[in-house]
């Protein structure tokens, strides 16, 4: 099996250049590539376009990369939880493109599947449809959306092996599998990296073919946004 293991996040992201297009997995702060984000902060790379469902919070996740002004543009479905984000947006420092969540997921899936465009009902008759081709199928209207691809996809999984096979845990899976398939270079960080042969092939969520570099992350904080308990 091909060994894709690298030492750490710094080595994994070494060739991310200014103005790259990144995909970052996660929903809210659940399933985000914490170690890669920390390494990007250290690298000082700038002008990034980040495709991610959300933009983190002020002091965690992509929010940290906003604070250091490393992000030029966000492509997301929901960006509510971040005061610095709002400030940069209103002052014009940050560009934002908002996309319906299912369309975002499918555009990334399409990018990783070799499908340049597809038709979806989401957004028909709304401002999301402006400038897009619409077409009728079986009496209903749909609009055309195109694929999304990235220079680098940064994904987080629970377990992985050195050939890049990945298993996610709980709802931390979210956007990670599609992003893994849509990156020109896909970097996976995992909580536990095991030798080839230790993962059950029946249980693999992302086959290693999509992953170019993999490392075992450290010090996962896994911050909770809305800590809610039973009364």
């Amino acid at each position, binding site marked *: 099996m091909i060994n894709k293991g690298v030492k750490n996040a710094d080595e994994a992201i070494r060739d991310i250049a200014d103005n790259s297009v990144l995909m970052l997995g996660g929903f809210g702060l659940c399933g985000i590539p914490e170690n890669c984000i920390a390494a990007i902060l250290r690298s000082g790379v700038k002008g990034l376009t980040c495709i991610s469902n959300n933009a983190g919070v002020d002091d965690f996740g992509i929010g940290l990369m906003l604070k250091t002004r490393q992000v030029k543009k966000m492509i997301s479905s929901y960006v509510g939880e971040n005061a610095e984000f709002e400030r940069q947006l209103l002052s014009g420092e940050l560009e934002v493109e908002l996309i*319906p*969540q*299912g369309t975002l997921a499918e555009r990334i899936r399409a990018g990783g599947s070799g499908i340049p465009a597809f038709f979806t009902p989401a957004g028909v008759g709304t401002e999301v449809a402006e400038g897009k081709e619409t077409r009728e199928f079986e009496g209903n209207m749909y609009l055309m959306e195109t694929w999304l691809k990235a220079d680098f996809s940064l994904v987080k999984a629970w377990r992985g092996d050195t050939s890049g096979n990945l298993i996610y845990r709980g709802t931390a899976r979210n956007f990670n599998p599609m992003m893994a398939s849509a990156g020109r270079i896909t970097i996976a960080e995992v909580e536990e990296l095991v030798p080839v042969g230790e993962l059950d092939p029946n249980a693999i969520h992302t086959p290693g073919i999509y992953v170019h570099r993999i490392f075992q992350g450290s010090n996962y904080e896994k911050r909770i946004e809305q800590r809610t308990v039973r009364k």
Partner: protein
Amino acid sequence: MLDKIGIAKRIAQEVQDGMYINLGIGIPTLVANYIPKNMNVVLQSENGLLGIGPFPTEENIDPDLINAGKQTITMMPGSALFNSAESFAMIRSGKVDLTILGAMEVSEYGDIANWKVPGKMVKGMGGAMDLVASAKNIIVAMQHCSKEGASKLLKKCTLPLTGLRCVKRIVSDLAVLDVLPHGGFRLLQRAPGVTVDEIKNATEGRLIIDGEIPEMVII
């Protein structure tokens, strides 16, 4: 007049045995607390879970298990986990039987606006546009009027739309109404203590009143 809990309790009466349901953030999330215990339903969370369970105890909080509102949750026995593309595949293909969500405005044709107020910070539509474009049955939980007393049940929405002609039923603090296929809000029930005249005054869009309108029963 119904408070938030009252609206959630009334919407829970719409739930039927065997349904797959997606609950939006806010009042819709509360509906889960009032679904009759003898009913078997499965709650879908668009971030990748079928089978949302109750909130966890302090001891079994798991940061890898959250709902679409980013709250910590548990899973019911028999749950299934999947990625976001698959989540919206089941939504788009009509597998989810019922979608319950909030709204800022609904038009008499069932257009819904709930994601953007011009001049205010735009947070994004999240999964709302995908949900309203595809769900077979959409029930909206909303306040009938704004704090200033302006009707939110309109001839035509004034805010940017989330979806066209998609809302089937509205449960507001004042009434239960159906949106008719050819336009108009048909009044089905009054909230406790609310008169038909009060509902008329609070509804800008075309209101259709057929015969006696019963008061809803909330237990």
